[in-house]
């Protein structure tokens, strides 16, 4: 798998390790969507399911020297049964990662969750709104500098009409 990826995306692979029986590959951030597309469509790889997207804030991680934020992708192939873990990092001042929501349906919500909880922005995402927290929420709770006891109340519900208007427009309603 690794040879294949190195051949098709020579500049995308930054390193890899096989620790708990799953290959973990570090990917250059800007190439993540291309790599995921290859993994999904290549007939010998066929990673058909996006299992999860995990965002990490490494700011207090002991001995960490890389960029502050990390995004970890878990993929699984139904046909071939293997798994792979991809990871990218993003800097503190501009935590932007290309979206893969065009490749996998559930990436839409998983990326919204990562944005909501960690403040990682996914470029070209169709609707990067908060998912678990409400729309008046300020900050990103899973960042290490967000105090665990800080609560935020909601004053007015989200009408959801922005999403609804967009969907109705798609369906031809005027």
């Amino acid at each position: 798998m690794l040879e294949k990826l190195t051949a098709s995306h020579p500049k995308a692979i930054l390193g890899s390790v096989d620790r708990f029986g799953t290959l973990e590959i570090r990917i250059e951030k800007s190439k993540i969507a291309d790599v995921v597309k290859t993994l999904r469509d290549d007939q010998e790889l066929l990673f058909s399911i996006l299992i999860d997207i995990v965002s990490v804030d490494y700011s207090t991680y002991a001995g960490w020297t890389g960029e502050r934020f990390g995004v970890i992708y878990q993929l699984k192939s139904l046909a071939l049964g293997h798994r792979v873990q991809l990871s990218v990092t993003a800097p503190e001042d501009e935590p932007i990662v290309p979206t893969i929501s065009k490749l996998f349906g559930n990436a839409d919500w998983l990326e919204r969750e990562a944005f909501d909880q960690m403040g990682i922005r996914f470029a070209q995402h169709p609707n990067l709104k908060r998912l678990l927290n409400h729309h008046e929420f300020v900050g990103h709770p899973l960042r290490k500098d967000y105090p665990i006891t800080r609560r935020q109340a909601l004053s007015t519900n989200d009408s959801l009409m922005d999403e609804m208007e967009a969907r109705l427009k798609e369906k031809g309603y005027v």
Partner: protein
Amino acid sequence: MINPKTLLPIESSSEGLNAVQPKEKKDLVMVNLGPSHPATHGTLRVLCALDGESIVSAVTEIGYLHRGFEKDCEVHTFQQCIPYTDRLNYVSAIMNNVGFCKTVEKMMNIQVPERAIYLRVITCELNRIIDHLVCAGANLVDIGALTNFWYSFNVREKVYNILEKLCGARLTSSYTRIGGLSRDVYPAFGEEVTAVLKEIRKGVLDVQKLISKNRIFLDRTKDVCVISKEKAIAYGWTGPTLRACGVEYDLRKAEPYYHYADFKFDVPVGSRGDVYDRIFVRFLEIEESIHIIEQALRKLPDGPVMTGDKRVALPPKQQTYGNIEGLMNHFKIIMHGICPEPGVIYDATEAANGELGFTIVADGSKNPYRIKCRPPCFMNFAVFHEMIEGAMIADAVANLGSINIIAGELDR
């Protein structure tokens, strides 16, 4: 006075019957299903644009039960996270305990004793059965078949009686520990489980007798809210809902753990991917789980239920009070906690709803640096709005029950 133009037959008007009218938003009615409504099973909100009773377009909102499970775990030790996992899918709490502990054990390369493994299998399958009973029972109530609810919840109560004797709690069990179980089973456990399995079979049969030839049930579920195999996979569906679409994928077969490879059981699959298939796949899975429990009870070995690994297991009390090594070991685990090596791990189990996974990022300290839970129903609900578009409101309610959304794990 009547305008003569309005009396003209419609054919004679310039546009005629088949002229395409522009679809106008003002003809639609916006209705919120939930967030606090019995039919939404907890706290989900679906905003529907209705044309008559048909749903033209839908948008969902989640997060009403978001407690910050992942943030809370970061300030607790690994053992202290176990009670939090109870509250993910609270209908089958032990499966979450097992999923979490298995991930940490894999990370630290801990060998769990055989007896604990078999007991984990037995309790997990009991939990799978009650989860499916709750799902099917509540689903049937939503479409108006109340009696089935009593039949399935009666036996669920009896399973809870066993779980209560086992770990002192009915719903939030916290039964496992990293490296094994909190305690061994009580002496009559085997007989009581065997007896309850018989009642479960009867309960499921009673429900099936009521519904399998019931015209109303069939009309309400067959070909309702169909999802194709390809779409289900693209949205990351797993578990019974994916199998209902005809994909034979079960982690217990695909990546066997805990001796599942040695148990004889089948993986039921559906063919259409409609509400009917999703309900019946669960009924058939209950039967398979009963088979697994019977085999596991027969094979249940003697021995300890907690590993002797000094990194995670507290020493026996006489050693804690009797010698200095035991005392230090006890002190180290209580004060310094369990400390896996730094690294990232993902591990998954087949929970009642599908693949329940935990990603753990460890930095070598006693607290997990980052935990991410992969709730199976999150993926199911991400496509819910597309499934119900074109269906009727009543179908949306039937569909919601069939994909078994548990807000506890959906919102975390």
